[in-house]
């Protein structure tokens, strides 16, 4: 599906849509990496993560926070997010490339994911969530 940046003065506000919840989580990951690094290609980097939380909103925050951690300590940029979601348990295969300062420096460093206004909403066509990234 898609993500789009909405107006927010101080931080970055993204509206993310997915036909189902797994796609919503995948798109949320893509939106975050788009903000941080801009363009990215699959170049052999693959990583798996597994997360469990008590509800979907917390799972989304934990998942995005985990991605922030992984990208920073492993110097990797991800572009595809193959998400498998069972209830509030998530496993995802991330694919991308090593961080390259020449190509990945046009974005904004994200400090954290805000709980403010974060609510996963079911719509006729699927799911939507608005996420504030603190930058």
């Amino acid at each position, binding site marked *: 599906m898609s993500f789009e*940046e909405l*107006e*927010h*003065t*101080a*931080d*970055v506000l993204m509206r993310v849509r997915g036909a189902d919840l797994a796609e919503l989580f995948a798109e949320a990951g893509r939106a975050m990496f788009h903000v*941080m*690094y801009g363009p990215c290609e699959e170049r052999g980097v693959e990583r798996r993560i597994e997360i469990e939380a*008590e509800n979907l909103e*917390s799972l989304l*925050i*934990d998942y995005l*926070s985990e991605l*922030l*951690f992984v990208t*920073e*300590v492993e*110097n990797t940029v991800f572009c595809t997010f193959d998400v498998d979601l069972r209830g509030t348990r998530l496993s995802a295969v991330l694919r991308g490339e090593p*961080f390259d*300062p020449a190509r*990945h*420096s*046009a*974005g*904004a*460093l994200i*400090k*954290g*994911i*805000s*709980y*403010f206004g*974060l609510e996963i909403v079911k719509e006729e066509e699927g799911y939507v969530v608005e996420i*504030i990234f*603190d*930058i």
Partner: protein
Amino acid sequence: MLTGINKIGDLEWEVPIGYVPDMRVPGRFFLSRRLAETLEEGAVRQLANVATLPGIVKHSLAMPDIHWGYGFPIGGVAAFDMTEGVISPGGVGFDINCGVRLITTPLIEADLAGKKRELIERLFDAVPTGVGAKSAMRISNKDLSAVMVDGARWAVERGLGTEVDLVRCEGEGAMPGADPDAVSAKARQRGLPQLGTLGAGNHFLEVQVAREIVDPEAAKAFGIAEGQVCFMVHCGSRGLGHQVATDHLRTLEGALPKYGIRLPDRQLACAPIDSPEGRAYYGGMVSAANYAWANRQVIMHEARKVFAHLFGIDYDEMRLIYDVAHNVAKFERHDVDGVSMEVCVHRKGATRAFGPGAEGVPRQYAAVGQPVIIPGSMGTSSYLLHGTTAAMQKTWGSTCHGAGRVLSRSKAKKEIRGKELRERLAGEGILVRAHSDSVLAEEAPDVYKPSGEVVRVVHEAGLSKIVARLDPLGVIKG
């Protein structure tokens, strides 16, 4: 102006109880009519939300750089009773102890003639900046624990500064109460390679000139003179602080039912100050704050070496005026209706501005009040002010922290071209160095409120008084 808000002074406004449900105290903020034009309803609502938190004392406050954030508004200040009150990462932010330090040099602007480009390039080489920046320093996990306890002192003891630097930092460059055990393995992993790095976003290292001295007596006490070249470091606790905030926010959010706390915004997740979760957050936050003080100390050391080498001046001739935190929660003693009381003061995008004679102000500045440093945005003036007794009485000894944005990053990117901006600033004699031009567009001067107006408001409201105006000559950005 928004409705439901009362003007109670020339520059002072009140948000009455009832603006949002469950407010325990009124809100108060400081704003000129001009700045009020860009005030967001969301920011006022966030100010009111803070007033619902248990144990809040007197008012939920905001400085004139108030704008819409998450949890507390940016520019938000609130104090909490030590027994009834709470501590909240939403009142500190993800970048724990983001702060600013200002250093004078013995140079004047003319000394930079023909060397400014080289100076900026050398500073850019010496201080790692931007996303993915890694430090040249190699520190062990044991070192990192010491950094989190000792703060700037850790760096000074390794020759990265002098003893005099320490007394010229808020809290002497470290807060007591660090608990490195409350800092996760993940936070450590992020912190290990980043000590001495600037980071990205609005963080910078800027070369400036003291263009105007407004208060000669205070300027003399602070050791700054008209025409003097200075440099300013603006950064925080990097990935370590971000992870500490993320980890504890999660724990505190989960503990809300345990303490029966109902919130209008989950980002205000909090726990009683003296609870296991509250104590753990405080210990982790202090550890990150101390890391940030060490970080700015290391960056200052590297910049001093560049200046010393390029201009043949002594390391010790570059004197730290002061270092202030603008994202932190601290236990402080304040006068509450005539009674001295310990409270937990949260400042999120606000600067401590203790007045003359207040405890914690370095002895050499005691007669004037603590130095307050307000960074400008790229290409605009920064200001040196001093704290006041009025701030002690009205705002828990707090003032503004910067300009505050008026234009979103997405709009900035559409409306401003980084390359053109860089060239325009160069035309004005301001050299800018960053990894990419698009970073410049997002942080362009036009996206911020005029820093002069924000500073004028705190000056006229008496929350701090202008000592000097500093204009940029060159800047390195993340």
